[in-house]
Every structure is written in C-alpha cells, then in structure tokens.
C-alpha cells in the first residue's frame, strides 16, 4: 500500500492540443477508492470540447473507473469514494448542490454491453425526453425520437418497426439504439465504456463511423481495449496504467511518437 501511495506524486507526460479546442471537462488529482483499495491514484486531465478522447490501457488500469466518475456513476457502487476535482464547464460536479440526475442528463453514457430497456424501440429513445419533460407534445416527442435515431444512423433500419421491442435488434443495432437513447436527452458529453467490445467487426465499423459523426455536436469520451479503435476514432488519447495516467496527447502523437517507455511498450503489444 505504501509503495503504491509513494507514487501518487506522479507526473503525467502531456502533449498539448495543437487544435487548441476549448476545455469541456477539467479534472485534477482524481482519486477513487473502493473500500480499502485505491483504484485511481490522482488523475488530472483536460478533455476538449467536440472531440473524441480515448482512454486506453490494460485491464484494471482504472480507465473505466475514471470514466464513471465523470457522470457520477460510481455513486451507485457501495463503498466507492471519489476525491479530487472534476469540473464540467467550470462547475464542480461533486458539489453537494449539484443534482446528480441533472448531471446525468448532461453527461450521457453508453455501456459495454448493449442494454436497451425491454420496451419498444420508440419507448427506449423516448424514455429520457419523457422523464425530463423535453417534449411539449406527442409530435415533439416523435420528432426527437426520429432525429435521435437518425443521428445514431439507425432510423432507416428500424423505421418500420418502432413499436417492436428493442431487445429484438441485433447487437450492433442495440448498441446504436443505446447511443440514440443517450442522444435523445441532448447531452453535452457522451461517455462510452468499451461500446464495441460485444460487437462483431461490421457492427463495430458502423458504431465507429457514428462516433466520428457525433463528434461534431458532442464531446465524447471513449474507453477502449482496441488500440486500432482508439487510433481510428479519437483525436486525443490518454494511456492509463495501474491507476495512473501515464501519458496523454494528440492521438497520432501518442501512437506514433509516445514520450513514455510504458506507452511505447503497451501500444507495440509488449504488455497488456
């Protein structure tokens, strides 16, 4: 334990953003403890607006844990404690005055396994707008559903069966339905926790294409095990290892010219 804590004063190697995008999420020395075990040892990173930031790293490195801090999904885990600062547009999201429900409406999430509600495709997408009262009328709601499905490039495949259960779709379609569901509440940030790990290559390609399109309107943070995927979809990449953020920078930079030996070792497949 003490050996691990000794490394908390850890310097992340950073390469600034050449595009100089505005910062959407600012985090400083974020620590997460599950009971006695510290899973994240102080992570500081700035996530730029309207870009895709990928978190990579070997299993158990804390990248998912960190992702789940950004919409306070860790609150639901008994014994989880989060320290440090996480700011969304200069607003501290762990501020006791901040409503977690409102935060999650602003920061949507797509999970590893597609998890559509066992309801119709329409109701899946309409659920968020309904509970947040985003639609004034039925026509409004229908419009939100259709645009969300269109944005998730799913509409053409499901337009004739909006009343059929969402669980009847294929894995890739289900995942895009989950993305549509997240988009429907018009969040500012979408967190994706290994969204393609349960999908086949064709479905993966579709989701990646979609992520690329979505970055025009949303800030996206994606956790992935596939380095190719990170290279394909992201503009910035952050490499996590053993609860530390080792290196972060522009994706092409991190993949072609990593400044840290461990990053180099990981992306070349020497460990992980």
């Amino acid at each position, binding site marked *: 334990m003490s050996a691990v804590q000794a490394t908390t004063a850890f310097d992340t190697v950073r390469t600034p953003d050449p595009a100089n995008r505005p910062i959407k999420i600012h985090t400083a020395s974020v620590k997460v403890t599950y009971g006695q075990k510290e899973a994240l040892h102080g992570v500081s990173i700035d996530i730029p607006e309207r870009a895709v930031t990928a978190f990579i790293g070997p299993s158990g490195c804390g990248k998912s844990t960190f992702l789940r801090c950004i919409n306070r*999904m860790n609150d639901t885990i008994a014994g989880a404690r989060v320290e440090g600062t996480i700011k969304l547009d200069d607003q501290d999201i762990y501020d006791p005055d901040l409503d977690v*429900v409102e935060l999650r409406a602003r920061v949507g999430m797509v999970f590893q396994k597609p998890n559509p509600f*066992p309801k119709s495709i329409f109701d899946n997408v309409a659920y968020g707008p309904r509970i947040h009262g985003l639609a004034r009328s039925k026509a409004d709601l229908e419009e939100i559903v259709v645009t969300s499905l269109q944005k998730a490039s799913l509409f053409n495949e499901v337009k004739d069966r909006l009343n059929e*259960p969402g669980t009847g779709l294929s894995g890739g379609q289900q995942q895009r339905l989950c993305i549509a569901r997240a988009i429907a509440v018009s969040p500012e940030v979408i967190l994706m926790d290994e969204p393609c790990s349960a999908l086949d290559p064709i479905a993966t390609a579709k989701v990646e294409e979609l992520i690329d399109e979505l970055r025009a309107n949303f800030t996206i943070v994606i956790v992935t095990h596939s380095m190719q995927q990170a290279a394909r979809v992201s503009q910035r990449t952050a490499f996590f290892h053993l609860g530390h953020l080792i290196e972060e920078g522009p994706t092409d930079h991190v993949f072609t010219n990593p400044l840290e030996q461990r990053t180099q070792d990981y992306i070349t497949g020497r460990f992980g």
Partner: protein
Amino acid sequence: MTEAASSPPASRIGGTDVRKISKIDIGLKRRYAAERRFRTYGLLAVTIAICFLVALFGSIVSRGYTAFQQTRISMIVDFDPSIIAPNGDRSAAAVMSGNAFRFDDLIAASLQKTLEIDPNDEDALYDGLDLLSKGSAPMLRSMIAADPSLIGTKRSVDFYATGDVDAFIKGSIRADIPESQRLIKDKHIVLIEKLEKEGALRLAFNTGLFTNGASTRPEMAGVGVALVGSLYMMLVVLVLSLPLGVAGSIYLEEFAPKNRWTDLIEVNINNLAAVPSIVYGLLGLAVFINFAHLPRSASLVGGLVLTLTTLPTIIIATRAALKAVPPSIREAGLGVGASKMQTVFHHVLPLAMPGVLTGTIIGLAHALGETAPLLMIGMKAFVVEYPTTPFDPATALPTQIYMWATEPERAFTERTSAAIIVLLAFLLAMNSLAIILRRAFERRW
C-alpha cells in the same frame, strides 16, 4: 478392453501419450456408472412421489366425490293457509313467529299422501318423517316467509333426506349388516324403496354444499360461509401484503444501505418465514383481538394474521426477483438521467414482476391453506349466517375441514373430503393463475 483394442496401432503412431488416454478411459466407466446410478435414484424418487400423490388424491376423491350429489325427496306440499297463518296474517314476520311445529304438520300431511300411509298409523308417519332432514320444517318456513304468495297453493318441494338416508342411498351404510347395528332400520328401507319406486327420491347435485353455512345436520351443512370467509381473508391478505411486501423489498434491495443492520433484517425476515404459523395466531390473538379489540372470529383478523405469515414469503420472493434483474438495466436507467426511484419503478420492477406475482400467489395459496393461526383467533366457530363484511364472524375452508373431520357421521366424512377437494381446486386454480401471469408478463419483454 479398450486398451487391448487400441494400443497396438496407437503405440505405432504416438507411443506413450496414447497409453495415457486409455488409462483415463478406465475411470470413465466408473463415472458413467455413478451417473447412471444417480439417474436411477432420481427416477425412483419421482416414481415413489407420484405413487403417493396418486394414492392421496385417489383416496380423497373416492371418499369425497359422493358429497357433490345429495339425496332429495320431492313431495307435493299443500301450503294450507289454516295451518301456516291460522289468524289470517300472511306477512313474513307472522310466518316466522308462532308455533314452529305447524310446518312439521305440513310435511307430515304431504308425506302421508305421497307414501299413502293410513292417517291413523302414527308410527309409520314418524318413520317416514325420520327419512327427512330435521331442517325441513325451518326450510319450509323460510321458503314461505320469502314468498308469502305460496300460501294456499300446492307446489312440489325438494326436501333433503337425512345424512343417514343419504349414506344408505350412496351405499356407505350397507343393508347386509345386522339391523341392530344399522342406522337405517328395515322399516325405513321399506319406505325408501317405496319412495324410489314413485320417483320421489333421487340424487341431485348438491348445491347446498357450496351455499349453506354450518349445521349440525350434515345434509344441511356446506362450505358457503367458509368460502366467503376465505375469500375475505384472501382479499385482506392481498391488499395488505402485496403493497407492503413489494415496497419493503424494494426499499431493502434497492435503497437501503448494505450494512450490519440490513443484514440483520434480512436474516430475520428469513427466520420469520420459518416461524410456526400458530405463533402468528397467538400474536394475532394478543395484538389484534386483546389489544386492538377487533372482533373475534372475523375474517379481517384472520386476514391480518395471514398477512403476517405471508409477508416474509412475498418479501423473499420479491427480493430474489429484484436481484435477478440485470444491473445493466439499472445503469441504463440512471445513465439517461432517471432518478433511482424512476429507474426502479419504470424498469426494474416491471422486469421483476413475474417473480413478484409468482411469489405473491404462492404466498396467498399458502395462506389459503393455513389452519393453525385461525384456530387461535376463533375462526373455528359455528357460523350459520353469511358474513356480509370482513368484520362479521366467519370460518375458513381449512378450519371447516378441521371441524368436519371431528364429526362422527358418515355424511360429514364425505363432506370433509369434498371440502378438501374444493380447497385443492382453489389452490390448483391459484397456482395455474401464477403460471399464466408469469407467462403473460414474460412475453411482454
């Protein structure tokens, strides 16, 4: 054996490795034998269970099915106004008051005509009256009170035969045993045969079994009051234990912090499910009757006590059903910004509903058959009048079975079995409902 067959070519190809495989093959034989043995035990156990079940149901049905038919004696009754309303007042109150024995005279008159008995032969007339239920006169009286226009007419009336005549007709009192040990004497048999020949005596479906209340005369006794009592109790149990149990389990499973106290509560709920039900009966007696002064023998109190016995079952089933809902659904709900409450009620509970309903109906079925706590709160009473509200005295099906089982008459024995059949039919219906509901809710997803 396999070794001998496979080793010569094998050794040519692979050498030592192949010999190792054949060594494992010998162990396989033993393992397959163990599996076969286990299957045989299982099959044997199932067969024995089925045999017992068939024997149980066979004995209940073979004893009880006769109770669904009953011997009736139909006779033309002359509703003579000079006997019924000697002072000319035909109102219901007047019919109900006055000398009750005057209705016996009506019956005697029609019996005398039907059997063509010499009016002066009083003994024969009394023997004939012996065949009819002692409840016949009150029955006639309430019939007239309900419809005074009958007075002055002649009408065919179905009378109940006594339980003993009924038993004789159904063959459970046999004619070949000596007369001194027989409840139906030779002189009665003569009259019965005469009635049969005239077509006055016949077996009819026993509606009274379902509509009548308690009676000391088996032919007039039915499970009507017990059915209503059980129904009221089930309603009370359903209305109280379903919302309480489901809400309680949702709180414990989804909202309560996981710590020593909730662990203690969980252990104790499991313990409560194992507490003998008679203890709940004592609790109900002390709290609901002695302390809260609720009426004795009331189905409300029965329902309250059964709610206590059913709650642990429902809570355990509901918690199991909630636990079985994949956490990804909760994450999905929270992820789009639903509050915890919304997530639970919009997504988790609907998915858990089949399990919740199954648990509830199993709990209700259990409560329906519960006897001991009802004995403690006085639902083992002689109740003739239908309860109109849950506050009125009532009995329940299982306590009715218990009371009839202690009666010596043959007719009560078959009624006991018949009541068991009714109870089992209700349980079967409830369990089928549980299965249907489960299917219906599962198909939605």
